[in-house]
């Protein structure tokens, strides 16, 4: 038997948070509840979780362990809109799925939805590949910012207008390892 790990110390970057919005225990409980619900809904089906890198990694890892039925997992990655984009540039897949999804029950897992622009693109891409079903599970839902309406089957938490980090969500690739979802101090971004 391996030696038990000592208690995990909190990351030093916790000090950059102005406040914690969702604590570690609250996240654990909600993800467990989602896993139970998904396990019931997909019992007897060939379930494939698909996550979009990189923000979803912590959430999908915990969700996967909370699902009690047979399940497989795969990841997709896309280029990001940003300051280095050439005029007229369009989104592209930077990592495609390893698994075929035709005829399978796909649950797309996302860390956060705000405008719905990214999610609508990814769902269009996946739908074109002919899955038996395609539903969405989102940890954090910023409904106030929605432009494109997307049907969300499984919600974690509703968020208001805050820019959040932690539990996989980053600011310039930092803070993903925080065990909570929190708001950064203004001087940190």
């Amino acid at each position, binding site marked *: 038997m391996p030696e038990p790990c000592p208690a995990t110390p909190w990351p030093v970057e916790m000090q950059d948070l102005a406040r914690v919005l969702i604590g570690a225990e609250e996240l654990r409980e909600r993800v467990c509840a989602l896993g139970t619900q998904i396990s019931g809904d997909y019992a007897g089906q060939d379930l494939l979780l698909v996550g979009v890198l990189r923000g979803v990694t912590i959430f999908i890892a915990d969700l996967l362990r909370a699902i009690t039925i047979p399940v497989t997992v795969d990841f997709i990655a896309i280029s990001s809109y940003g300051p280095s984009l050439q005029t007229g540039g369009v989104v592209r897949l930077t990592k495609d799925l390893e698994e075929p999804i035709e005829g399978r029950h796909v649950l797309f897992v996302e860390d956060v939805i705000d405008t719905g622009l990214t999610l609508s693109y990814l769902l*269009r891409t996946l739908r074109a590949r002919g899955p038996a079903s395609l539903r969405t599970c989102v940890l954090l839902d910023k409904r106030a910012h929605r432009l494109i309406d997307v049907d969300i089957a499984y919600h974690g938490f509703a968020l208001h*207008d805050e820019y959040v980090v932690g539990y996989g969500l980053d600011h310039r690739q930092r803070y993903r390892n925080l065990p909570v979802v929190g708001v950064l101090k203004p001087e940190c971004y």
Partner: protein
Amino acid sequence: MRVGPYPNYARPRRAAGQPAFAHPSEAEFASLLTFYQIDWLYEPTTFPLAWDEAGRVTLAFSPDFYLPEYELYIELATRKQGEMTRKHRKMRRLQQLYPDVRIKLVNRRAFEALLLKFDLRERAGQLVGQVGHA
């Protein structure tokens, strides 16, 4: 007889085919839609909002964007407060007169959140809070 919604042929075009956007924030938003492969039209429709006794249009509203796939109009309100208040008033009037028209407002705060999300805060000074020039 009152005039109903009509296509907006007045919007000038640049030589390359891109619309002459009234504000840099609209150009950035169009670029974002293009990036996510969402078809858009710039100010394609003008909605009359008020008429005089002869039925002539005295107040009209041309939402900034129309997304045909989603049958959705989008209006950006990223400028100074006075202009935003006028836009809000026009939005409310449009929804009273044309309840079947789907329109969403991107206010200054939501637009700033977009800039932060896409690491474009350095452009905020150019994109938010200025008065349009068209």
